[in-house]
């Protein structure tokens, strides 16, 4: 029996264990809520993690298309990227899957074939962690971009208010460009 068949058969237990391990990274009271509230609109974080790991697990066993799996990872990492986690804490949940799988199959005799498959799967999980880190960085960069855009817009408006920036049009009203007018700053 191949490793994938074994893991598919144990899917529910493995996912439950993985989910619990991830919830342990939250304060106890929060973890209880994240686990027990099943409505995805009342509990978007818990349900995003729950659905996300199921999708990742399924895709991992089905060949692991990067585009698909990246989307699933994004659903979880986008949340953890803005919660109170460091970068390593935000993405480390991927590695949990390794120990969850090893714990889950500890009663299965590890034949050389299974062992080889397990090493290959663990290597895939390592790759997931690398993709996860890329996604984490994209999220953080997006966050800073949003911050920067807000600051840029505000600064431009302030300059307008101070009559230091005007929108200049040529006589034919053909072109628009921003001209910084040489006006003394009124301090």
């Amino acid at each position, binding site marked *: 029996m191949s490793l994938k068949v074994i893991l598919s058969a144990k899917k529910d237990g493995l996912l439950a264990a993985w989910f619990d391990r991830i919830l342990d990274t939250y304060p106890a009271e929060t973890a209880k809520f994240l686990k027990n509230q099943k409505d995805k609109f009342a509990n978007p974080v818990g349900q995003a993690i729950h659905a996300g790991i199921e999708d990742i697990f399924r895709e991992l066993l089905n060949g692991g298309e990067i585009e698909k799996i990246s989307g699933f990872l994004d659903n979880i990492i986008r949340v953890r990227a803005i919660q109170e986690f460091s970068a390593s804490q935000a993405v480390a949940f991927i590695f*949990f899957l390794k120990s969850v799988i090893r714990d889950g199959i500890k009663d299965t005799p590890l034949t050389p074939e299974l062992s080889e498959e397990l090493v290959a799967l663990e290597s895939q999980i390592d790759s997931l962690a690398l993709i996860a880190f890329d996604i984490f960085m994209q999220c953080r960069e997006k966050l800073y971009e949003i*911050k920067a855009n807000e600051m840029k817009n505000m600064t431009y408006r302030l300059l307008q208010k101070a009559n230091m920036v005007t929108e200049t049009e040529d006589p034919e009203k053909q072109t628009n460009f921003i001209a910084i007018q040489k006006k003394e700053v009124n301090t």
Partner: protein
Amino acid sequence: MAKLSTPAELLKIDYNPPQSENWMDQPVELKPGNFCWGAKGKNLATVEFPNARDWSPVEENWKLPKDWEGTVLEAMADRLSKYRSFKVFMDICVRCGACADKCHFFIGGGDPKNMPVLRAELLRSVYRKYFTSSGKYLGKLAGARELNLSVLKEWWYYFYQCTECRRCSVFCPYGIDTAEITMMAREFTNLLGLNTDWISGPVANCYMKGNHLGLEPHAIMNSIEGMIDDIETITGIRINPSFNRKGAEILFVTPSGDLFADPGTFTCMGYMMLFHELGLDYTWSTYASEGGNFGFFTSNEMAKRLNSKIYAEAKRLGVKYIIGGECGHMWRVLNQYMDTWNGPTDFMEVPKSPITGTVFDNAASTKMIHVTEFTADLIKNNKLKLDPSRNDDLVVTYHDSCNTARGMGLLEEPRYIINNVCNKFHEMPDNTIRERTFCCGSGTGLNASENMEIRMRGGYPRANAVKHVKEQHGVNTLANICAIDRATLSASMDYWVPGTRVTGVHELVANALIMTGEKERETDLRGEPLPGKGGNE
């Protein structure tokens, strides 16, 4: 050399409140991204707030006045005697937990001290210590604790992480309004000069110049002039609004965000196009040039002071009544507080639409109606020529702003309008709209940039519902009737649901509005090609 940790060890996060140890024993740690910069002394001094000085939340020394504990406790005693609701809210919570998982900051962030019950407990514990016998004698056993610097810092950190959206209060079996508890906590911190720059700056501006942005009359007129140019480009119609005009029938007041920040400016263009088409006898004011009220996020007295200019200006100009623009907390103030603070007015009339003759008895005392009430009535009476197909490239959903939905029950009018000016409208799930709407995550002066992480956490439950309707129905437009929503949901959508346009309802109205004498329109108010124009099919 440090040992390399396993992932599990890395993830041992050291905040682990209620179960492991008592929450009271965990001093607050101010984490960047969760709080706004401290108020500047000059802004506090402008409005004569106490202890005006520059301060920084991250510095150990908050430069507090002498005997600050006495100041707070004295103020608490005063408010307890003055506001029966505050006293009741301090006493009757049975900690049933119905509110615990209803706060968007808790749901999105996971910090247990953002459970409304626990956030309120930060204040209640001090109340018990000094104002109840059980707390005085039994202390911690009775859930009481002394007021000290650590507690004060915790108050400041968490009560400026509450947006006073009042979602939790909808679920409280006792009707405890946690927003009022936050308001009280903010009153106390303001007595010590502890507010944020993002709130105190606008308050000072509003006090001196009439609006949060500090726009002087010429800047307001310039801004509106720019919009008039754009309207002319789009419709071929030149409109001529009036400013500070005595004898006008109606005074129009909107949040200043509509005057200067996209996409609010498109909403503002929408109001003006509608009023022009109706030939409405209205005036702008460059004095009462702010519907919003950031004073509401400092103290009751400050909110009242800033609000007073609206009636003062209405009286000076001699208008019959006031129409207010699309804003959130502005309407909580106008609907629930203005009449008590600065009314009732005896110099105006009960609002009556000059177009339909409808009398707005609901505003019989305040004499101020919401622009969506006004417009919904026009549509109901077939007074507008509308072409909803101009909005056909927009698949719209509607975000109920907390204050208009929960604070004044304005649920149907915006939906009625949207359904008449757009052909494609889809509701978000029931437990995320109407009275149970989720906050944008950035209300009550939390819409600064330095606290972006907390804004995104707070905005997640709302964004999650938008994402759902996007996946289900292809929704690409999030309509709302709040200036803060328009500004902050844009950022939230950018992070959580990219490609979602955030719009005010009157932008949609103006797109669909067929104006007398208009040229054939090629673009919407944003200058983007209308459906069927410009090859965007």
